[in-house]
């Protein structure tokens, strides 16, 4: 479809044809102030006033179809005169118009049958004071059909081509003006062949071009090819105060070009390809000054690099330093019609290094898409959202930003980060898609260009030991029951006759405390409170008896803090790889220590609190259980707690998995093909030529364009991961930190010993001794925790058949 004339009638003085013809007015056609359906106004002709345009492109060949259409308002009332307007050529072979007989309450659409005659719509129309869409369509054999609001109102065979190179819009005579807006004339366009819904937006040309002062709306239709939400990521950088503008360029290309099944550098059918490059520097098209070869090289993990050379015009003053940082774009386009079309972007970036060869007067530029710089400009939250992965301040530098942070995250993700030719930052998983985006076979791969590189065994890693030590404090409490009976009532009298001493309560408490225990609860067996006959005398109770006892029962605790060290040894491995090539080992290590106040101070605080010396409860305190050792994990900082330790281990596990995967995808299959702009690092390619069949993610693509030799080549490399065969699914253990130790309760096995020197000639001292820390508890200080994680790798197609 080619639009030959397009009028929106939003402005006048002058009227504007969006295609670009010069508009000539005859009479006084004017812009109505009535509000149109679109834009600012409508065209209203007066008696004898009309517009005309001229051009050889308005000639319609005998085999060409065309469509003339407009949106019109026919005024009601006035039954006394014809009302007519035309969109027609000078000889009336091609026309669309409105006709109304005198005193006829209706009107008709009028069209040409290819001669000077006229056809009227088969149904009179009672559509007044409203926007009506009318159209006449002529097919390639000459049949004319006209449509009103999408309904067929007449068909007639016609014959003649239209050789007139003029088009008129306006009135021959009109007593009551027709208003119309949106007039479009297109050739090679049979736009309507069946009932349709009239367009509800201003007409667009086949190649939209907006003139200065004109506005058009561009409906955007986004088709989602799979479940998900279509996204149109936009990034606007405003360098200074003012109004940010977002220039938007829309290029309509055949879908085959976007998919890569076609290329502007590969001819269609029996035609050869005629292509051209379009190079802009600082938004200025410099293609006409480009000499030599243009190269664009993209590889996983690095910035996209472009190089080209200019021959400046004689007399140009060159300031090399001024070029650095200037934006550059490189497109490749079809040039078969003489005018570049279907341009596709190969590179967007900036000049990194300009160079001048004074002998040849050539300026050469090395450009970069500035992947590192773009990452540096983003905050960690944005990079994290884009890349994902596992973060840990125990494994990575917490102060890392930008490119450094991105690389840290990428080390935990089996994917590559790069910038698309259009300048969009994107993450592409290493895993090849099950169905290749593009197949490069014998009809595309250059003879003799196929290359295969197999990864060496020395570089393989399939068994990674992750060593991670986590030290953190636990607060523990041992609670002993201490029970002692020096004498009971049965032997009470004899006890006295023997001259034995009773236990002083204060002595008991002192003995307990000197042993380091905290008294939780204590009860004493008191002396009798009644007169007891002792031998020939009597035992008479006294007030001093309150300080004595015959025995006691106490519960005491020992509170202490212990540093626990968990020694995680996580084996991340791929069993199939080990079976195939033997164990290829590597180690990753990390450590984390829980941050907590001085443990001695913690123990003191607990004792002081239990002794009611202080009312402030300690932050962490184990709830003592009699005859047991209970423990509780101390509350450490959020940067060093269990969650942080788990995050660190998960990051290390993820890194180990990525290491294993990366080492197995070092096989490379390479080939040269005619330049296909769709070839890029985000594509899964299948190369099937010359006995080699391999599928994998594109790891490298280099486009080379030589305007002088005519050759445009893409050199691609795919990363192939192949071990046990396609279809084999490797074990994959989720990346999760293994369980650590838990604070718990163990039974005390030892018993306290009480010795009371009660004899008359003894020292009357009571000594209480307790067992040391349980051996099991001591052993809990260092705990070895082995675990295993299965790391998967992809299985890509990779077969080589030796052919004669």
């Amino acid at each position, binding site marked *: 479809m080619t639009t030959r004339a397009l009028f929106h009638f939003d402005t006048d003085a002058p009227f504007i044809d969006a295609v670009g013809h010069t508009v000539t007015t005859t009479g006084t056609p004017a812009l109505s102030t009535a509000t149109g359906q679109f834009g600012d106004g409508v065209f209203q002709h007066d008696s004898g006033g009309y517009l005309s345009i001229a051009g050889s492109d308005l000639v319609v060949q005998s085999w060409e179809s065309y469509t003339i259409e407009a949106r019109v308002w026919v005024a009601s009332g006035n039954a006394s005169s014809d009302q007519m307007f035309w969109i027609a050529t000078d000889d009336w072979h091609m026309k669309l118009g409105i006709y109304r007989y005198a005193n006829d309450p209706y009107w008709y659409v009028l069209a040409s049958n290819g001669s000077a005659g006229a056809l009227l719509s088969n149904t009179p129309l009672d559509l007044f004071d409203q926007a009506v869409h009318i159209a006449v369509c002529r097919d390639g054999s000459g049949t004319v059909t006209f449509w009103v609001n999408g309904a067929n109102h007449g068909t007639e065979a016609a014959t003649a081509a239209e050789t007139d190179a003029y088009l008129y819009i306006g009135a021959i005579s009109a007593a009551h003006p027709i208003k119309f807006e949106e007039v479009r004339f297109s050739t090679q366009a049979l736009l309507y062949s069946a009932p349709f819904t009239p367009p509800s937006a201003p007409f667009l040309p086949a190649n939209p071009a907006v003139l200065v002062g004109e506005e058009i709306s561009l409906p955007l239709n986004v088709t989602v090819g799979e479940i998900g939400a279509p996204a149109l990521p936009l990034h606007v950088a405003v360098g200074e105060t003012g109004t940010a503008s977002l220039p938007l360029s829309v290029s309509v290309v055949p879908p085959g070009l976007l998919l890569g099944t076609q290329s502007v550098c590969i001819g269609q059918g029996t035609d050869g390809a005629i*292509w*051209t490059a379009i190079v802009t520097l600082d938004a200025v098209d410099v293609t006409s000054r480009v000499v030599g070869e243009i190269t664009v090289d993209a590889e996983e993990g690095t910035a996209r690099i472009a190089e080209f050379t200019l021959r400046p015009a004689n007399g140009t003053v060159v300031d090399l330093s001024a070029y650095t940082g200037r934006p550059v774009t490189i497109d490749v386009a079809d040039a078969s019609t003489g005018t570049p079309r279907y341009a596709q972007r190969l590179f967007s970036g900036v000049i990194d290094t300009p160079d001048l060869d004074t002998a040849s007067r050539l300026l050469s530029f090395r450009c970069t898409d500035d992947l590192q710089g773009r990452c540096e400009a983003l905050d960690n939250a944005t990079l994290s959202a884009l890349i994902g992965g596992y973060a840990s301040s125990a494994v990575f530098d917490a102060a890392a930003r930008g490119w450094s942070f991105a690389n840290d995250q990428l080390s935990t993700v089996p994917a590559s980060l790069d910038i698309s030719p259009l300048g969009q930052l994107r993450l592409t998983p290493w895993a090849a898609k099950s169905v290749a985006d593009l197949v490069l076979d014998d009809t595309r*791969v*250059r*003879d003799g260009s*196929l290359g295969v590189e197999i990864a060496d065994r020395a570089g393989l890693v399939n068994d990674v030991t992750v060593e991670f030590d986590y030290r953190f404090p636990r607060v523990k409490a041992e609670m002993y029951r201490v029970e002692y009976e020096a004498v009971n009532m049965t032997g009470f009298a004899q006890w006295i006759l023997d001259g034995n001493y009773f236990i002083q309560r204060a002595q008991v408490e002192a003995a307990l405390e000197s042993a380091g225990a905290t008294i939780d609860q204590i009860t004493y067996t008191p002396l009798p409170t009644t007169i007891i006959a002792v031998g020939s005398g009597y035992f008479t109770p006294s007030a001093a008896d309150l300080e004595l006892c015959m025995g006691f029962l106490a519960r005491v605790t020992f509170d202490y803090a212990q540093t626990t060290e968990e020694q995680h040894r996580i084996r991340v491995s791929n069993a199939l790889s080990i079976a195939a090539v033997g164990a290829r080992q590597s180690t990753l290590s990390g450590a984390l220590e829980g941050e907590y106040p001085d443990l001695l101070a913690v123990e003191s605080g607990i004792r002081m609190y239990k002794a009611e010396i202080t009312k402030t409860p300690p932050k962490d305190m184990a709830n003592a259980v009699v005859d047991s050792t209970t423990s509780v994990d101390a509350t450490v900082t959020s940067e060093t707690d269990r969650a942080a330790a788990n995050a660190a281990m998960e990051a290390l596990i993820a890194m180990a998995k990525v290491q294993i995967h990366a080492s197995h995808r070092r096989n490379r299959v390479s080939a040269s093909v005619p330049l296909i702009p769709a070839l890029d690092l985000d594509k899964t390619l299948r190369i099937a030529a010359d006995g080699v069949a391999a599928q994998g993610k594109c790891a490298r693509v280099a486009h080379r364009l030589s305007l*002088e*030799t*005519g050759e*445009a080549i893409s050199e691609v490399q795919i990363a192939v991961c192949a071990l046990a065969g396609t279809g084999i699914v490797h074990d994959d253990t989720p990346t999760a930190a293994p369980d650590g130790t838990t604070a718990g309760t163990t039974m005390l096995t030892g018993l306290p010993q009480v010795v009371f020197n009660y004899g008359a000639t003894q020292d009357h001292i009571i000594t209480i001794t307790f067992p040391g820390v349980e051996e099991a508890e001591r052993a809990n200080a260092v705990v070895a925790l082995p675990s295993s994680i299965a790391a998967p790798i992809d299985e890509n197609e990779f077969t080589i058949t030796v052919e004669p």
Partner: protein
Amino acid sequence: MTMILKLGTLEIPLLAALDLEQSYEPIGGEAIFRTVGGTGLKQATWQKTRITTSGGGWLPAGLESLNVNAQLTLACIVPRAVPAVLATRQATLPATRRTDTGHTPWGIAYLADGSPVNTAATLAGNVATLDAVSGAVAYQALYLPQFTVWAFRPTDSGTRGDASYRWQFVCEEV
């Protein structure tokens, strides 16, 4: 009328060009990419013309007067042909052709026995319509190309013995 070769403002005198040869050579990117299957895929970029003109005669041509550092118009003397559609006797000629008197396009009609017959051409824009020739089975429209060129520095020589002069210049379409 004798056709005259012109380069810029210089008209090569007839006596300096008794013997004249002019060749048109397409220049520009053109390559054939051979695939593993043996298929050839043609790729091409821009195309321009290199015109090599050489001649000789009894007098020097005066080429040294040319300013070869400026673009020049080369009005060629060796015709090129475009086949015409038999039914309409029309052919679309390139816009880059001579239109000066005596150098306008003309036609050739071919009879069934292969013999050519001159015929006149009528131009409407770039479309040449040839006058009908009875018995013609094919038509060709001929024209004299005219290019805007950069000229390389010309060379010339002479032979005293036979008082003859030779010259050559090479031009490339801008």
